Every structure is written in C-alpha cells, then in structure tokens.
C-alpha cells in the first residue's frame, strides 16, 4: 500500500474526484467508440504513424484547442474566486495550483502547439515544398509535445499539480517548500515537450533554408514563412537554456544537487536568470508567427500587397536579436542596482521601435485598399489597437524605477494578457478561420464567427483593462483572495464578467465548427478568399504531395501574380514524386518518453531506466533502418490531379 500512497492527491477536493471520474469515462468512451466503429486501424495508419506535415499540423491544432479549454476552465475558476472579496470557492492551495497550471498550459501546451500547427500546415505550402526537411523528426516533435502535455495534465489527478507559479522560482519550487511531486511534473513535462520544440526549431530552419521552390529567394518568401523562420531561429538559441535549467531543477529536486537552493553554494537568482533568458525570447517565439499570420490576412482582405516588406523583415530580425538582451526586465527589483537596470531598461524599450514599425506597416497595408470585414480581418483589425495598448504598457513596465510599483501586480498581468490575447490568441483564431477551408474543405460560418469575435473582444476589454487600475491600486498578482477593505471588489467583478463573456466566445467557436461541418457548402474551390500566396495555389483537399509540379516563384505573392499578371506558376511535365514513408516509431518513442517522465516524477528508478534504454534503442534502430521512402508514379499523379479538377 505504501507504494501506492505516493500517487494520492495531497490536497483532494470533490472537483478533483469528479475530474477523475470524467477522465475515466471519456477514456473508456473513446476506446469503446474506436472499437465499435472499427477505427483503430484508421487511427493508426492515418494519424498515429503519419509523417505528413498537414496531418501533424492538424493534430497540433486539435491539441492546442483542447488545451485552450483546459486552461480556460482554470481561468474561469480563478476569476470566479476573485470576483468578490473573501470568496471561498477555492482555498489557497487550489488557487496556487490552478494559476500555475493555467500559465504553463496556456504558454507551453496551448500557444506553442498552436504556432507549431500553423508552421506545419503552412510553411511547406508557402515555400512550395512537399514536406518539411525531416518528416519523421517532425512526427517525433509532435509526439514529444503530446507526451509532455499528457504528463502535465494528469498531475492533478495523480500526485498533485505544481503550485509554484509558471515561473517556478526557486527556492519556493525546491524540495523545502514544495514537497509534493507537482513541481517534478513541471520540470519533466516541460522538458519533454521542450525537446520536441527544439527539434521543430532545427527542422523548420532547415526546411526554410533548403527547400524553397525555384526562384524563391529569401526576400521573396511569404511573410508568415519569414516569421516562422525567425521564430524557429529564436527557438534554436533559447530552448537549450530552458533544457539545461530544467535539468538542473530536476536534479535539485530528485538528487539534491543544490544548484538553485539558497544554501550549500546554490543560488536562487540563477534560476530566475535562466528562466527569463529563455522566457523573454519565448514570448517573441509566440508573437512572431502571430505577426506572420496577420501579415497574410491583412493584405488578402485589403486586396493589396503588404506595405514595406523589407522593413517588416528587418524589424523581425532586430526583434529576434534584441529579445535576448532584455531578460533582466523581469526582475528589475532583484537589487542589481541603477546601472544594470538602466541598461536593460533601454534595451527593452528599444524593442518597441521595430514593433511600432510593424504596426505602421499593417496600417499602411490597408491604405488605398479595398477592405472586406470578414472574421479573420475583424480579428486583425481589433489586434492593431489592442496590441498597441499591450505594447505601450510594456514600455511603461520597461521604465525600471516605475516598474518597482508595477512589478508583481495586476498591472503586469494586464500587460501580458494584453499582448498575448489580441496578439497571439486572436491571430490563431484569425488563422484558424482563414485557413479552415484550405485544410477542411468548407468555410466556417461568418455570422457565428462574428458573434464569437465580438464576445471575445468585448470580453477581453472587460476582463483585462480593469486590472491596470487594480494593479495601480496595489492588488498583487497571485493572491487567492483579498479583503473588502481593499476596494478591489467591483473591478474584479467586472473582470469576472469579461472572462465569462470570453468563455461564451470560445464556446461559440466550437459551435461554429460543429454547425459549419453540418451546414456549410463543400463547393468552395481552392481559393475562397481570393488570396495571394502560394499555399492557395494547390487544390482543396490538398493532395499528399502538395504540388504535382513544383511552382516557379518570382515574388512574395506568386499566386497573386499568377492570377492577375499571368505569371506561369507550374511549368513542364509531371515527374515521379519521392515521399517519406510513415513510421510508428515516433509515436512509440513519445509513449516511452511518457513512461520515462512519469517514472522520474515519482522516482521509480527501475521503470525509468528501462524506459530510457527503450528510447536509446529506438534511436539506434533508426540508424540501422534503411528507409528510402516511396515514389508516386506519373500515372497516379495524373489520376489524382484529374480527380481534383485538373492542373492549374
């Protein structure tokens, strides 16, 4: 019995027991459903073993949406607890676990897969390639992310969730102050999915550098591809820092190494530095692909080319460089003195300049355009002013002396939600709506989409703008409750109402998917929005090889040139196409990583060692395996192309 006690929740509640039952029921339901409809084979062949970038993209997308709802439920519970003074919905421990998991889930397991979804779906199509450079590695990236996400998500029913904040500062996150296994989950689950992210970074950089269509020079790449390239470059430089920091944190917790403890020569400040040397670039990893999506959507619906292509590219390059020089702004208050703070204050504000350039370029893209207010465009239009507010409050925070007053308050919370929600989340929803027809063959309903958009925007303003005020009134972040005397009550109630309205918006988006699936026309052609870049030049549904003949490119808007100026995209005869073959190994490795992670969390050394050996075995197997992929013959290509409506 003693053995099993470690898996118990240290701090149970009826909600957690209810979740356990719900998880069990859903799992049984899924297994029964798959068996009943005889879908196991389909699932294995078409999804679990796939190396197709489009399917991997879709799996990222589904995971991201699931995690969005998990994180959203956390958010609603927090806002409900704070909506009135001295509320007793959650106690301190639950509240701490919830804001910790909310932060981790939203950044690592929602926003990251969301951007990876779009990178996977779009990059090969935008550069006219048949897949990414290393398709099997790409599948492994996904399954590592998935294993990490699952591991993190079971924490609240097995062993207990982490409760030291998404920043997990030591010594609070050390064994002295966080005794239960929650923080082990944090260290190991993020580690596993982080390794996946790092591999995606390498994969995408290689893809973009080596696999562009004939004629596509770097300065003729579509803007989303540029943003993906820069974001992945940042990943390659930033994630190793996280990997090392998490490893040190793990050994501190499991093997008493004292890297970050406050005695025995450890240094708690080291963790904060490592965390933010990764953490600040991380926020730009998230925002740049979002910028990229807006740079695709705004030109399409303004019926104009992107204004200032070159400044757009250079501003991203500059942002990526500066993003590594500002991390100290997350702890101006750690006592490094006026000189250090001054330097980091200036570098931080400097980032606002290239960001501002981008804002102006989007504005000028609409200038003299012909603007259509579709759902993706509405998100983009709302993004511009709302993100500007987020950016300028960032500049306010960058004034280090004043930051002594903002730091750790709701003002900071308002700032980063003000950048992440209109910046990243709106971009993802806009991209989802915009690219939905390309990948699923039908449009999402515009009317429901607009309702969702207005709910999210109004809800957002109501939920987060009051926090600027309560922050300046002295409301610290991460407090599970406050007294009536503080006077924070009314504005927190407004926030709660805003959060509830946002929740309605998200439900409407789900409803829209369901509704449109049943009711939308399937006769939409391959270019329903009258778009401009290469991803729209292939058929819908997209054949597995993407392009029967590789496109020839003369500008960043090759497809538009083909439509408007008679540019010849596809030339010459069909040729045999070489494709990578499917493999179950990435999925299996993901599952072994899960087992290894779980064993480490609970210090079960025998299974941990066996699982690690399994991982090395899979890697060794790969180097002995001879797999040249397979070929699609010219006849098959002709047949497919004929079915899809002939060559363009």
């Amino acid at each position, binding site marked *: 019995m003693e053995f099993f006690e470690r898996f118990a929740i240290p701090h149970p509640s009826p909600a957690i027991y209810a979740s356990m039952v719900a998880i069990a029921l859903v799992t049984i339901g899924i297994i029964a459903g798959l068996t009943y409809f005889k879908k196991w084979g389909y699932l294995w062949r078409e999804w679990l073993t796939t190396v197709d970038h489009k399917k991997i993209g879709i799996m990222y997308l589904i995971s991201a949406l699931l995690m969005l709802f998990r994180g959203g439920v956390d958010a609603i519970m927090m806002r409900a607890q704070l909506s009135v003074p001295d509320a007793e919905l959650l106690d*301190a*421990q639950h509240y*701490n676990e919830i804001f910790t998991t909310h932060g981790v889930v939203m950044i690592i397991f929602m926003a990251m897969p969301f951007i990876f979804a779009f990178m996977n779906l779009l990059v090969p199509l935008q550069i006219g390639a048949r897949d990414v450079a290393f398709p099997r590695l790409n599948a492994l990236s996904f399954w590592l992310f998935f294993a990490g996400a699952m591991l993190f998500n079971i924490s609240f029913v097995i062993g207990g969730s982490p*409760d*030291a*904040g998404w920043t997990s*500062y030591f*010594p609070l996150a050390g064994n002295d*102050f*966080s005794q239960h296994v929650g923080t082990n989950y944090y260290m190991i689950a993020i580690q596993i999915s982080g390794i996946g992210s790092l591999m995606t970074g390498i994969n995408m950089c290689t893809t973009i550098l080596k696999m562009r269509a004939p004629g596509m020079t770097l300065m003729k790449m579509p803007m989303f591809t540029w943003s993906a390239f820069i974001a992945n470059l940042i990943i390659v430089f930033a994630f190793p820092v996280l990997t090392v920091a998490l490893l040190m944190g793990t050994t501190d917790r499991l093997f008493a190494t004292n890297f970050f403890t*406050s*005695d025995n020569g*450890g*240094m*708690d*400040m080291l963790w904060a530095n490592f965390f933010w040397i990764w953490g600040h670039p991380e926020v730009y990893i998230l925002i740049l692909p979002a910028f990229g999506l807006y740079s695709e959507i705004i030109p399409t619906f*303004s*019926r*104009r080319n992107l*204004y200032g292509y070159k*400044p757009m590219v250079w501003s991203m390059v500059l942002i990526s460089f500066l993003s590594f020089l500002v991390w100290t702004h997350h702890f101006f*208050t*750690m*006592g*490094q*003195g*006026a000189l250090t*703070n*001054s330097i980091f204050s*200036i570098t931080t*504000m400097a980032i606002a300049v290239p960001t501002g*350039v981008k804002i*102006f*370029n989007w*504005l000028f893209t*609409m*200038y*003299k355009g*012909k*603007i259509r207010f579709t759902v993706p465009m509405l998100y983009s*239009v709302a993004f*511009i*002013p709302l993100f500007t507010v987020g950016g300028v*409050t960032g500049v306010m925070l*960058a*004034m*280090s*002396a*004043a930051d*002594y*007053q903002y730091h*750790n308050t709701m003002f900071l919370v308002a700032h980063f939600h003000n950048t992440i929600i209109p910046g990243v989340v709106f971009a993802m929803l806009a991209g989802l709506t915009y690219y939905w027809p390309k990948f699923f063959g039908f449009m999402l309903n515009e009317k429901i989409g607009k309702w969702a958009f207005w709910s999210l925007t*109004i809800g957002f*303003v109501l939920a987060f703008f009051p926090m600027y*005020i309560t922050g*300046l009134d*002295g409301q*610290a*972040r991460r407090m599970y409750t406050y007294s009536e005397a503080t*006077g924070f009550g009314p504005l927190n109630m407004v926030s709660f109402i805003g959060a509830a309205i946002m929740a309605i918006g998200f439900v409407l988006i789900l409803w829209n998917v369901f509704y449109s699936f049943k009711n939308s026309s399937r006769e939409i052609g391959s270019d329903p929005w009258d778009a401009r870049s290469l991803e729209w030049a292939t058929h819908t549904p997209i054949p597995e090889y993407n392009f029967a003949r590789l496109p020839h490119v003369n500008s960043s808007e090759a497809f538009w040139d083909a439509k408007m100026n008679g540019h010849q995209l596809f030339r010459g005869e069909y040729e045999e196409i070489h494709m990578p073959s499917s493999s179950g190994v990435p999925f299996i490795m993901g599952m072994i990583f899960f087992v290894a992670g779980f064993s480490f969390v609970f210090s079960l050394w025998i299974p941990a060692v066996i699982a690690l050996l399994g991982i090395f075995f899979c890697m060794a197997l790969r180097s002995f395996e001879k797999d040249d992929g397979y070929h699609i013959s010219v006849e098959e290509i002709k047949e497919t192309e004929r079915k899809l409506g002939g060559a363009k």
Partner: protein
Amino acid sequence: MKKKWAFLSSMLAFVLVLAGCEPLMVLDPKGPQAAQQASDIMLSIGIMSFIVIAVLTILVVILFKYRASNQPDDYEPPHIEGNKWVEALCIGIPVLIVAFLSFMSVKSNYIVESAPVGYENEEPLVVYASSSNWKWHFSYPEEGIETVNYLYIPTDRPLEFKLYSFGPITSFWIPQLGGQKYAMADMVTTLHLGADEPGEYVGRNANFSGKGFAENTFNVTAMSQTEFDEWVQEVHEKAEPLTEEKFDELLEPGHLGQMTFTGTHLEFSPAPEHTHNDVSEEGNDSEEESDHSGH
C-alpha cells in the same frame, strides 16, 4: 463600430479613475520615492495615450475610407512597395519617444536607488526587514528593537531597508512610500524609502511565496521623530527580549499577529550580508561594509 465605443469608453473610465475620483494607491504617494515613481507613471501614461490615440485615429480613418462598401466595384488597389520618407518617420518618431523615456528612466533609476532627495541632512534609519513563511520581521539594530508584522517609522528621514528572507523569495512593498524590492535568502538588498506625511500605510509581500502569500501583509505607521523616539522608549520599558529560542519559534510556517521585542535577531542570526557580494550599491553608498571580494 461597437468595439470602438467599448474601447473608447473603457479608456475614458480608465482616465477618469486615474483623474482621482478615488486615488489609486500607487498614484497617491506619501513619500519622495513614491512621488518620483508616480510622476514617471503619469508622464508615461500621457505619452502612451497619445500613441494609442494616434494609432486608433489612423486606423479608424483608413477603415472608414477604404472599406470595400465605400468603393466602386471595379476599384483595384495599387501596388505600393513602401516609401522611404514614411518609413523614416515610422522609425524616427518611436526612436525619439523611446529615447526620451529612456532618459527619464535612467534618471529615475539613480533617484530611487539612492537616499530620498530632500532629507539629505538627516541620518538614515536602518531597518532590517526579513520575511519568513508568512510573516515580516523588522529589526531596528540601532534602537535595539524588533517587531513582527508592523513597522513604525519616523517621517522626514531617509529609511534604509535591508531586505532578506528566511525562505522563498519575497518582495517588500509599501505602495504609498515607494516601489518594491526582493528579499532573498542568500543576499541582502537595499531599498531606500521615505515618508513625508504621518499616517497608516499598507505593506505587503508582493512576490508569490506559497500558501500563506495572500495574508503576508504588514502595517506601517509613519509618525514624527519625537513620537518615534517615544515609541522606542516605551518598547524598551515594556517589551520582552527576543531570545534565539523564541525567534526559532517565530520562524515556523504560519501567520502571527503583531509582536514587539527588545533586542534583534541579528545578534544570533545575522543577515546574509557576506555570503554573496551585494552588487546593488553602485554609486551612492558603496563605502558601506559590503564585501566585494565575492566568489
């Protein structure tokens, strides 16, 4: 255009509240450091509102003017690569704004990191403020007094807080007297504050430190130097001495009310001043005892 109204009205509400129907704590300073920060904050809110309003105006005009329904069906938008003057302007104006704010920021950094201006002729009062889960211990070494969860301070005199922690990183914050600074277990940080009005202020730990974090607060009472001296006198007459045993008891995790002792824990449990070198003292008070040999 519902959204714009929602947006404008919330901005308006924001400004109204800022304008002081009910002063927000940070914008209602009671000491020179907080006043400096409040004026920086107001200045930056002003400049930033200007930027937001400019962007919003350009946006609204463009959306209104170039919406598809406002144009003939056969209108075909031109191809515009960019214009180097427009681009120069888009870079130039932000650069100027950022340069100005950087200048202000650097200036304020040196102000808040040194003894408050205005009280140069007064000796600073040194208080060691240390946190433990989830309490604050205030040691007055010169007065030989220690309190728990409350702080008495004289007005019109520089206050020099030496911060450290007996546990997780915490952050010592009295919004109306000035911004916060971290208290950590392996080094001592210094926070310069001052109060120019007698009164009661709230103080708290602002940095999440576990279960008892929300209640990790303390009360601050500012009074004239004479009243402060009387209080010190009174404590020496009435309070019990702080023993090592008693102090260990106080460190146990939990919450305590307010307590008062004579003597300080610094005598038997000194602050971690020499374990890491204290790098926070560039400039003004570097002649202090800090150990720069480091490691």
